[in-house]
């Protein structure tokens, strides 16, 4: 009877979950085995789409671009969000200002932050370049059109935009550390740095792990801000895997191949999650 009641409570969610998540996942697997365009299913091709994927230089190039994004953003995100959380946790009168100002970018939609960035970074009359020139540096950096700078831009924007959420997680972790630990160490004569190193950091490891996992998963799905800011340019230098999947599926009209690549991404994420969770268990055990 208890189970029955519980079932009724999860039913509404479960129905939606099945229709919009489970069903498309299965349908996607079917699609990846067919030649399939926007209009209809054409013919069964078995593993041909997967075969094609392994020999497709654009698949590897865009997968590398996405991986590069993960490598660049994950460690910086962890450090930055930890730093901001520590700052926001200080008992100063700016506490509320810190907390809200670090978090506010997260509530903006991706198109809003992208247009803000485009507006700030555009050459010749953008705010940033004008500022650089006004302090006497005679340069005209192309933040969104240079192969290297466009990566810098995308990483910075993503950090600024999403750091708030991770900061909140760290902040919650910080506040869960029992005050008694600090009191005890104070009696033992520990310095501020020692407290941070031997109490704060170790206590934050579990939440840090969660943040790293979430960050890797989220970063592998990077798409919208790159599409809007550089459109994958210059010449495909910043094009992430999802953009390639999107182009193959919806403009090149090849949903079958797009589905196959989506599955490849799915497996990469699955393996990363399993490795991460295994590690965690080992250390805990």
């Amino acid at each position, binding site marked *: 009877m208890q189970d029955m009641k519980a079932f009724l409570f999860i039913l509404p969610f479960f129905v939606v979950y099945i229709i919009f998540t489970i069903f498309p996942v299965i349908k996607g697997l079917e699609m990846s085995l067919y030649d399939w365009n926007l209009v209809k299913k054409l013919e069964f091709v078995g593993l041909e789409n997967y075969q094609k994927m392994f020999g497709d230089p654009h698949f590897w190039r865009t997968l590398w671009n996405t991986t590069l994004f993960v490598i660049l953003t994950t460690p910086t995100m962890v450090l930055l969000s930890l730093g901001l959380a520590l700052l926001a946790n200080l008992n100063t009168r700016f506490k509320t200002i810190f907390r809200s100002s670090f978090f506010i970018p997260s509530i903006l*939609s991706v198109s809003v932050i992208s247009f803000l960035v485009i507006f700030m970074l*555009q050459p010749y009359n953008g705010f940033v370049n004008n500022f650089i020139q006004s302090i006497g540096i005679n340069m005209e950096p192309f933040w969104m059109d240079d192969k290297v700078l466009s990566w810098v831009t995308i990483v910075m924007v993503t950090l600024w935009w999403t750091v708030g959420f991770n900061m909140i997680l760290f902040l919650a972790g910080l506040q869960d550390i029992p005050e008694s630990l600090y009191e005890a160490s104070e009696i033992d004569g520990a310095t501020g740095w020692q407290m941070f190193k031997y109490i704060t950091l170790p206590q934050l490891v579990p939440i840090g792990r969660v943040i790293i996992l979430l960050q890797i998963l989220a970063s592998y799905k990077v798409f919208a801000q790159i599409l809007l800011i550089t459109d994958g340019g210059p*010449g495909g230098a910043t094009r992430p895997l999802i953009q390639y999947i999107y182009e193959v599926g919806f*403009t*090149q*009209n090849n949903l079958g191949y797009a589905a196959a690549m989506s599955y490849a991404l799915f497996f990469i994420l699955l393996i990363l999650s399993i490795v991460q969770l295994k590690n965690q268990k080992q250390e805990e055990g």
Partner: protein
Amino acid sequence: MKKVIILLVGLIFTAILLGACSENSSSSEVPEGATEVVLWNPFSGGDGEFFNGLVEKFNGSQSDVFVNSIFQQNDEYYTKLITSLSAGEGPDIAVAHTHVLSELISGDLIIELDEFAAEEELDWDEFNQNILDATVFDGNHYATPMDTHALIMFQNNELLREVNLLNDDGSIKMENTPEGFIEFLTKLKEELPDGKIPFAFGSKGGGLYWLWWSYYSQLGGESMVSEDPDNPEYVLDLEKAIEAANYVKSFYDNELIPLNLASPTSDFESGNAAIVSTGVWDTGLFEKSENLDFSPLPIPNVFEQNGTWGSSHTLVLPTSQNADEEVQKAAVQFMDFITDNGVDWAEAGHIPAKTTVVESEEFKNMPNRTEYAEVADYVNFIDRTTYARGLEDIVARNLDKLWSGEATAEKAFSDLETEVKELIND
């Protein structure tokens, strides 16, 4: 902790609310006794304004048919249209660009119009032949073209006069050769006041594809992929393609076009650029800025023949198992009406598809339109292939490697060839 959670929840709600506000929908009341025709269009901005004006004019002109025009987000327009049509859930009539027609026809998503056209007295002879040709497949008319919207050029008369590069009749002082145009731009660069741009144009994406395509056409290049829907072939004339690409690149190498302009049209609009190349659709925009003394003109035809990039907005009838013939006939009446009233559509800058309209006094009396109406006769529409949409991304991305200095024209086109052949299975 509690405070943090309250803050978080509050912010999330704000985010949801902000998101919800951005959605809008329009649905109009159908008058009693009228046949409702649902139409999908991708027109925003000025185009949207003039298009809705035309729909209202049609609805007001009679009481039998009511066209319910629904705007669909531009970026995802074709994804939405194609998937809806294949699911049988589409509109009764839709706007489509000429380059998508092949894809719609090969998917059996639209029907040919000849029978209805004959019944409703839609006369194909009234249309411009070059535009009409882009909508005829195997001798059948599959779409009613509303316009052609081509890549043209705009000149800032004030700036040109200042550096003495304007003839008395308002034309620019230049020799119509590849070198002549470069020479003209170089003079501009040397003599314009500081901070003024000789030639405003973007440095990446679709716009450059159009400019390259224009010069490729002027050199006699015709297409990239052959039309055969079953066995398309890669037919790019490499020599001409490279020549055209290097010509465009020389604008950047000689700093006639500053690199990476964020918004070339705004630069021109604010009077900071002497020349800009953009679509006819910006004519209406430039007319709105009061202090701008400008004239439109075709892209200078500097090579062997006249040519420019262009596309055309057309109206199509979707295939539907349970199509109501009344509705389809009403839709064709609307097509005839909207093309007859091409002058209203020309307000946005587009060149009307009907020759009868272009030759009318009303059109001839419009300022800033007749200057470039001739391009309708020589616009080179991009390839009619089911792969047209995918092709656009590939060409633009590979050409970008050239402008950004990452590859030579030879390398860019060899990459492009590999990718296009992969796309079309040639």
